């Protein structure tokens, strides 16, 4: 649904996006992560056929962003970094205006707008002037605008910023619902937990280049140290360290617990449990210490 090949954008000699190559399939959510100024917004603007790539090519919903920009724009829903609403307009007028520009007929415009507002708990906002909206409402209205024509491709820049937890959940549920309806979605975000929860794949971008790309699990296994396991015993750990040191590297330990790292937990863990059992040591729990996407992100970006 989205295909980028060597996409590059330069502004007066400054390279904002540098030979980005990736693809997003229907029903897939890709999260673009990166520090401020990394090139996320410029990439999204090129995908929305607002900016023209300096070199390289991007196809969105089957259309080239350079050769058929209007067709691309018809098929993309863009949530911009700032909601950018016309504050003197009412919600109804605003959605009607964008619906007209996109080419929806009057009945479709009204039906879609009312449905989406109801889904985001904003039915009352229909007749209110947008200047009276809270920050979260403005963000939701901008999202409704992006989804109004039910586009096959959605480009969402910080979709839940400024939202209260309830609204943010509504939006996340809506995004997941869109995935079920086979939409291709690109999300730019600084909210790593959200990216991990929503995205099928994650691309980390720095100085215009994709420096890491994969599923959250892939990125963790590829970019972080071997997984750390935490073992809780039914008795004190005296002597256990010596017993297991031939199998694993013990990283830390407490009175009745210890942590060890292993490159191959599937093979090592059963062996370790057998060893402990053969020495009459009871195991209460054995689990992997969770590793967050934040660890991956910080490691990659700081490198």
């Amino acid at each position, binding site marked *: 649904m989205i295909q980028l090949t060597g996409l590059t954008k330069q*502004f*007066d*000699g*400054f390279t904002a996006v540098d030979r980005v190559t990736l693809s997003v399939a229907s029903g897939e959510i890709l999260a673009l992560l990166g520090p401020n100024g990394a090139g996320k917004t410029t990439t999204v*603007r090129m995908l*929305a056929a*607002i*900016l*023209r790539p300096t070199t390289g090519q991007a196809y969105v919903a089957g259309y080239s962003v350079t050769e058929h920009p*209007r*067709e691309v*724009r*018809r*098929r*993309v829903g*863009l949530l*911009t*970094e*700032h*909601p*950018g*609403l*016309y504050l*003197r*307009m009412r919600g109804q*007028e605003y959605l009607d*205006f*964008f619906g*007209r*520009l*996109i*080419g*929806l007929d009057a009945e*479709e415009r009204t039906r*879609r707008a009312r449905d989406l507002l109801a889904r985001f708990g904003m039915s009352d906002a229909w007749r209110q002037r947008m200047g009276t909206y809270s920050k979260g409402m403005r963000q939701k209205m*901008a999202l409704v*605008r992006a989804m109004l*024509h*039910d*586009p*096959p491709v959605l480009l969402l820049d910080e979709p839940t910023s400024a939202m209260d937890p309830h609204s943010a959940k509504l939006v996340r549920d809506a995004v997941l619902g869109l995935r079920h309806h086979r*939409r291709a979605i690109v999300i730019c975000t600084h909210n790593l937990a959200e990216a991990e929860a929503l995205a099928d794949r994650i691309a980390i971008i720095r100085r215009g280049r994709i420096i890491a790309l994969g599923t959250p699990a892939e990125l963790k296994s590829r970019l972080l140290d071997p997984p750390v396991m935490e073992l809780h015993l039914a008795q004190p750990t005296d002597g256990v360290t010596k017993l297991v040191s031939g199998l694993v590297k013990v990283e830390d330990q407490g009175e009745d617990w210890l942590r060890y790292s292993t490159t191959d937990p599937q093979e090592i863990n059963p062996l370790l449990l057998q060893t402990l059992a053969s020495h009459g040591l009871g195991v209460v729990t054995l689990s992997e210490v969770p590793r967050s996407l934040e660890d991956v992100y910080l490691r990659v970006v700081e490198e």
Partner: protein
Amino acid sequence: MAVVAGRGRGTMAESLRMTRTLVQREIRDTLRDWRIVVPIVILTLFFPALMSFVADMALSWVAKYGQPIIGERLLPFLLMVVGFFPISFSLVIALETFVGEKERRSLEPLLATPLTDAQLYLGKTLAAMIPPLLAAYLGIAVYLVGLYFFKGWTPPLILLLLVILLTTAEALVMVSGAVVVSSQTTSVRAANLLASFIIIPMALLLQGEAIIMFWANYDVLWWIVAFLLVVDVVLVRMGVRIFNREELLGREIDELNVASLWRTFCGHLRWKQWFFGLDVQRMPAWLRWLGTLGGLYRYDIPAILHRSRLALVAVAVGLLASVYVGYAFAYRYQLPPDMLELDLVSAETFAELPAVDWLPAFTIWGVFSNNVRALALAAFLAVFSFGTLAVALLMAPLAIVFFFVAQAARLGYSPVLFFSAFVLPHGLLELPAASIATALAVRLGATFMSPKHGSTVSGRWLWALADLVKVFVALVLPLLALAAFIEVYITPYVVIWAFGG
């Protein structure tokens, strides 16, 4: 997926529908802003009614002193004023609708719609023009109705048409100028500062129009209307070209990055080396300059001339026009025969030339530096006049030359011989050099008017400047130097041989 697969897209009706949608929204938004509506209402209804009353009082007052002519001239002047005041708001609305939207970050969602750049431009321009223009027309109507009831005065229809055209053309100049200003800034504050480039000329123009109105020389106002329409065409064309998504979003802050500009300029100054198919990098270091020169003359200069071909055509048209102007003036202002006695030209005539104050020294350096100075001035003026003054500066001396060619013909000399003797020897080099330099200067100025899509104005301008510098140094200066030598040491002998005694 309910995506609209381009319902009726590409058709004129579809294009107009989208533009109308945009215009309606913008006008509705404008009319909700009391800061704009209140002054417009005052200027539309209250001010014209007041003007009617004032005009009535003024007419009665001047009539008492036997000077009714002052009153007669005052009425058309006030007609123009009540039309102009509301349209002054078009500038404010235009700046607000273009750069204001950019500043409030509401432009990007609009740019993400299927609207084309031209539809956006047209829609916003119309939206900025329609309310003030309607207010202006209504203000004129209120003023006229008032005067009709107070004095029974109605303007000549042609005068009314003239004022309406003036008002409309002025509104378009302000709005299209505001678009150009807006596309180059990211804040209303910066745009307001730059808007002085529109306000000051308009204020001067209005003062001129006021004088003309009191002079009752209405024919001159038609010329002003024509001039404004030309300016409208230039500004609209410029606006259409620079009002594009790339320019609007490619510029996040109004920062003058001199280092980046310098790098870009230097980048444009480079060219590929060539020396008869040899690998220049493998040549001895002390011979590589041959590759640099070879590449410049074999590829770069021809490429520059090729991309400046439109400007060269414009200069050629200017030269032809100067021939006509020279001839036309020669027959209007005929010189007495004793002013052009070519038979008396001798070596002493040329020897005495340095004594003429207003001519440059008749030495190689004097002629050369004068020509270089004139062409450099042309390039400088071109920047501020979309290239037009550069052409005018080239046309002036050529028109003088042909003025004398025509005078010579009128006095019985062969115009071909006159031209061949006085101009051709050095002109064969000087004219092409001056024409090429002028064409590059025209390109430098015209870049503002028609930057290519997909590039910034500054980027294109720096490219044109680099081309001008390269051509000036590599082609124009050597030709001018050679021409100066010929003009000083060969042309005089040709003239004496052809005419002198």
